């Protein structure tokens, strides 16, 4: 077997950037191929928000009232979008745990690929699959009668803010994935994801909760994003009096930025610790 293998030397610095992107794309392509090979997984992933829509929209929905008036299902849908984004960090964490414990991360690290590629590839793949999630959820929402009255750009901006939250949570997901010892422990993440997504304005307005819980819910980053999306979609908003609720748009932009700034260095440091 005589194989001439090309490219034996490290690339020139100007090629580094090219390979960082190319390798990141290849790693992302792997996850996207998973979606194609296992379309049922998307169904499972979306099962929860879709069932929640039916449960809260129709079973409890008739008993729900939106403070300040408005249709509950109109109020609920942006919440469902936000909840799906919020719980997405579990997917990131789980994928990272799996790669680390199964040795795939080590294989990547032993290869001459761009060192950033496992991380950028993960992030890229998660954003693409989050877009897919939103697409399917929005279609479901349209079927049950939800509409955006905000016009094209406002609607687009709302989805942009939702993805911005998901982007920030990728870093939390990677960090959690790197500190989680094994798959079983990753399964327990639900215990964190659930309150994180639910103690927010996803289902009910914080003003309807006990004061202390309402305050926690109002300051939850998920609430800012969901409230901002409601405003942009032109859906019922049910604003409370607290400062953060009055400045939902600002919160929806700043919260994910803060999360990213805090968790990128933490995730990177954790990743470097793999070589300790």
């Amino acid at each position, binding site marked *: 077997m005589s194989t001439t293998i090309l490219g034996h030397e490290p690339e020139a610095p100007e090629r580094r950037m090219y390979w960082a992107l190319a390798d990141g794309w290849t790693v992302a392509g*792997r996850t996207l191929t998973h979606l194609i090979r296992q379309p049922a997984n998307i169904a499972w992933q979306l099962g929860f928000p879709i069932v929640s829509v039916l449960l809260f929209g129709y079973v409890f929905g008739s008993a729900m009232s939106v403070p300040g008036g408005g249709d509950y299902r109109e109020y609920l849908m942006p919440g469902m979008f936000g909840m799906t984004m919020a719980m997405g960090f579990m997917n990131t964490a789980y994928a990272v745990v799996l790669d680390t414990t199964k040795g795939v991360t080590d294989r990547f690290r032993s290869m001459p690929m761009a060192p950033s590629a496992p991380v950028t590839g993960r992030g890229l793949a998660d954003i693409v699959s989050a877009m897919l999630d939103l697409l399917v959820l929005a279609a479901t929402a349209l079927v049950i009668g939800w509409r955006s009255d905000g016009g094209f750009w406002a609607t687009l901006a709302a989805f942009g803010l939702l993805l911005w939250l998901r982007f920030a949570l990728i870093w939390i997901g990677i960090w959690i994935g790197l500190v989680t010892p094994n798959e079983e422990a990753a399964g327990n993440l639900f215990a964190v994801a659930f309150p994180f997504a639910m103690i927010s304005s996803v289902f009910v307005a914080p003003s309807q909760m006990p004061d202390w819980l309402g305050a926690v819910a109002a300051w939850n980053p998920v609430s800012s994003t969901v409230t901002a999306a409601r405003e942009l979609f032109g859906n019922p908003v049910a604003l409370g009096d607290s400062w953060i609720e009055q400045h939902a748009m600002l919160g929806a932009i700043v919260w994910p930025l803060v999360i990213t700034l805090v968790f990128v260095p933490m995730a990177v440091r954790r990743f470097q610790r793999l070589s300790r």
Partner: protein
Amino acid sequence: MSTSSHAIHAVGLQKRYGEKRALDGFDLAVPQGTVYGLLGPNGAGKTTAVRILATLVRLDGGRAEVAGFDVVRDARRVRRRIGFTGQFTAVDEILTGRQNLRMFGRLFHLGPARAAARADELLEQFDLTEAADKGTKEYSGGMRRRLDLAASMILVPKVLFLDEPTTGLDPRGRNEVWTAVRSLVSGGTTVLLTTQYLDEADQLAGRVAVIDHGKVIADDTPAALKRRVGGDQLEVVLEESVDLPVALQAVARVAAGEPEIDEEHRRVTAAVEQRVAALTEVARRLQDEGIGVEDIGLRRPTLDEVFLRLTGHKPEETTDTTERTEVPA
């Protein structure tokens, strides 16, 4: 400096985790084109050594060159010249075998057409062509491990690291992997493999470094290591235990050391130097005395025993194979 004749050259490697010294003055020189076994019990430092050499873990002291480049300063160059197969099969379970190899090919910076062609070559070489388009979840353990090996062979590495390549495989899977590893070596790749399976080192490696408490304590061919432990053993098993004293006398005359008696199994064992002469001598003597012999033979020490002699303690995971080279008497 580049020690050109050595594919791997490590001098005084140090690595500590908290209080524990995982490596404590680890030296190793592996000539090009050889298969080298790192043998030792759990926690002896084998995996740490391999991970340092494969640029996965930073060292605390000493230095190491792999394929002529320093593993710290020139990690990227080293990575272009090595293949690494860790303790777990690091292939994607959802992708097919072919998709896996193409992806890794792209990550080794082969163009799409080149990566595809290389994937086909490797599938052929590792006898996976038929299963190429199945998801690797459906593969047997041995097949997955072969795919794993194939993935580390994409650039035809100068040095291949295998960390416990057959742990967890059934005998058939082990044989498949052994065959695959042998074929790699015939292609000129230097292989450093760690193993707790002592017969695996014996099967694959031309030389074995025995490692204990982070240090190489012996470094030789498997045969020489066995010889070092006292060479061949003469073993006599009697029909009746009352004959043990007579047999002991007969064996003692030819033995190089003190014979050992195992009453329960009616067995006398002793190290011998002139193996065949000793065997015939003892056999004739026992026959003359009219003693019923159930079994008589020569056996070489297993690597298990080698380890016990060298370290003073048994490896934690021993294999159940007691290797015997029977010489028809």
